[in-house]
């Protein structure tokens, strides 16, 4: 059986990759992909903890399903926003969005 800490290490690494993506990508859609990575990292944690701590209680798996739902909802709204911005400005590069500042 694979030890719990292995899963956690992979999850932590994926989470930090996600953070890097969110902070460093120029394109808003790419940033969204970064958040997807972070959510997946959290999911790995949840399922791994569920399996290793209390597999008889299903809360970990239910939580994971909720995260799926949230990821879908966020993706829908986020991509809609990207498309709206794109249709008015012709770009989704976050650095170019500086109407609001100060």
């Amino acid at each position, binding site marked *: 059986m694979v030890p719990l800490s292995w899963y956690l290490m992979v999850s932590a690494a994926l989470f930090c990759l996600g953070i890097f993506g969110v*902070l*460093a990508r120029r394109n808003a859609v790419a*940033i969204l992909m970064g958040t997807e990575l972070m959510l997946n990292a959290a999911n790995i944690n949840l399922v791994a903890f569920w399996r290793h701590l209390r597999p008889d209680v299903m809360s970990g798996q239910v939580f994971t399903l909720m995260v799926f739902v949230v990821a879908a909802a966020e993706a829908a709204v986020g991509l809609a926003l990207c498309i709206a911005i794109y249709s008015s400005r012709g770009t989704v590069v976050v650095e170019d*969005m500086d109407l609001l*500042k100060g």
Partner: protein
Amino acid sequence: MREALFNLTWLIPLFPLLAFALIILWTHPSRKWSTWVAWIGIGLAWLLGWTMFFLSWGDIHHLTPPEGNHPVPLWALPTGGSVLKIGFQIDTLTALMLFMVPFVCLMIFVYSKGYMGYGTEHPDPRYSRFFAYISLFACGMLGLVVSDNLLTLFIFWEIMGLCSYLLIGFWYDKSYPDPNRITPRQAGLKAFLTTRVGDVIMLIGLLLLYSQVGSLSFKDVFSQETLHMLAEQELWMPIFGTAPVATVIAILIFGGAVGKSAQFPLHVWLPDAMEGPTPVSALIHAATMVSAGVYLVARCFPLFMAVPLDHGGVQLAVVAFIGAFTALAASTIALAQNDVKRVLAYSTISQLGYMIAALGIGAYVAAVFHLITHAFFKALLFLGSGSVIHGVEHGHHKIAHGHHDHEEGHFDPNDMMNMGGLMNKMPRTAWTFIIGGGALAGIVPLAGFWSKDEILAHAWHEFQHTQHFGTFWPLFVWLLLTVAAALTAFYTARQICLTFLGEPRTEAARHAHESPPSMTWPLMILAFFAVILGLFGTPWANQYHELVGEAFAATPFDPFVAGLSTVLAVGGAVCGWLVYGRAPLRAGQVDPLKRWLGPVHGVLENKYYVDELYRLIVIRPVLRLAELCAKFDYDWVINRLVNTIGQLSIRTAERLGGLDLAVVDGTVNLVGRAARGLSTLSNTVDLKGVDGAVNGIGHVVKAGGRQMRTLQSGWVQDYLLLAVTMAIILLGFMLLVLPILR
């Protein structure tokens, strides 16, 4: 009957408040109605106030604080564990204040009608608003004196702060050709902000008090058990070490009084408060605002007395020292001022210093006595000076109308150098002013003599007879105050001579004429009081002592002190006459004092450069801090940090260079110039006041960090970088550093 009347206490501040509301909401289009509403409001308050006063006089033994008072509870505010009770009360100190405050206010209200130009061709455009504001001001002061707890007292205190801002800045659209001269708007803001410094300190004191006692009502706080408890408990503070809680609270509350009563080092706002209309100056200086500070200390006097000096209770020593120092310093500054109202302003600061010092050496009755007499003669002096200014201004208008080419730059009707010889033009004003001046200088038997003498006698007595206070303090206070008394007589004589004697030094003064009766009548009434009030407080039959000082031993009459102070007062006045009266100044002639004192005169004229010092050590660093914090948010990118540090150091170097230049250059106006040379920033403060400074910082930020702003800002990933980095740093700190610290 008496009880029923006392229960009406809450009406006293309500009348002016109603007047304020009526004027603001309905009567403001009509000057006539606004005047009457304001008069009736304060008039009713006066009637009720004097009724209370005379009733109390017959009932002294039931009303002596702190146990004996007549409570009028109003409101209860639960604050979690405890309940904050709020209400009004009457006791002897309140009653005495009710004798003075509404009456002097009434006189000022009456006078304002003429001063604001009622019925003339050019009434003030905001005439009604003025009466609304002063009504609210009177409400603030009256509410303050009838409060039975420190919270309502503080609220009314803040109402006065707000009104002082509105009234000092009343002519907010006025500006002067000289950019260094403070405008009314700036002066109002300065008064508001400076007193707020004191208020914050006071509020901290109140919070501390509340946390210790669980109540802010006088009855609870000044009860013997509470005071004993406060004196016993110790509080540890980072720098000062341990001190009794009572001492800490007393000093913090005194901070509020320092702000409101314009004591050193927060006195700077008061002279600039002269930018308001003269009735406002009289209101602030005599009846309301500055008295509030002294009243506060008098009100909290049991707290100040709670810890003796030998148990670590330094609070009275602090009070005495600040009071005496202020009294002397302000009177020296007054010597070198030419603005007729500024002289009075510094004399106010100085006389307030007397009262504070008197409280500091335990002369409670004398301080209250002086508070009352001072209110009357200082209101008289201010209204008199207003009358003089009014007259000169009208003279100026008359000649300006005569020949239009006469304009020789800006004419300052406040400058005493533009006056002279007004005795014949304005006899009523002149005589009442001289009576007021005599009272201020302490000439027998005018009011000021008796109250001042009692303070000095008390200090001397304290020096000779008591041990618990140490022997040094009373002597020190006595010395400072005595010197100040002599100086007071001198500058009062100077002022009277420059204003009223000799020949007119300008055309305007030549064409001045007496003010309307609505202005001169209040002067004469106040003059009457300035003469007789002292007679109720002679050492042989001291009514004040009977009224407010049951708990304190009377001070015996001391012929040495009385004689000395009389000699000094008369001597000072005679010196003043010798310098300025015997050979009156002619137009263009230099003040002889300037010749004799040389550079010292410059220092006095510039008020010891305290304003400049504040600009350097307070205003500028605060603005810089704000600028820095703004930049933190605008420009937060770590990879630009290096860039920023480089720029900052370059700019700092530039600033330092500017400082050097200014030091070398400026030999006369040393600090003033340095402050201006230091940066465009403080220059903007000079020009436009705090409001301008806000824009000014914006300008500096824009100019200094333009490229940085265009690079950054509005970039959401930048925000996220900050958030994530900070989260990681906090996490690292909590995981790795906190366990070590524990």
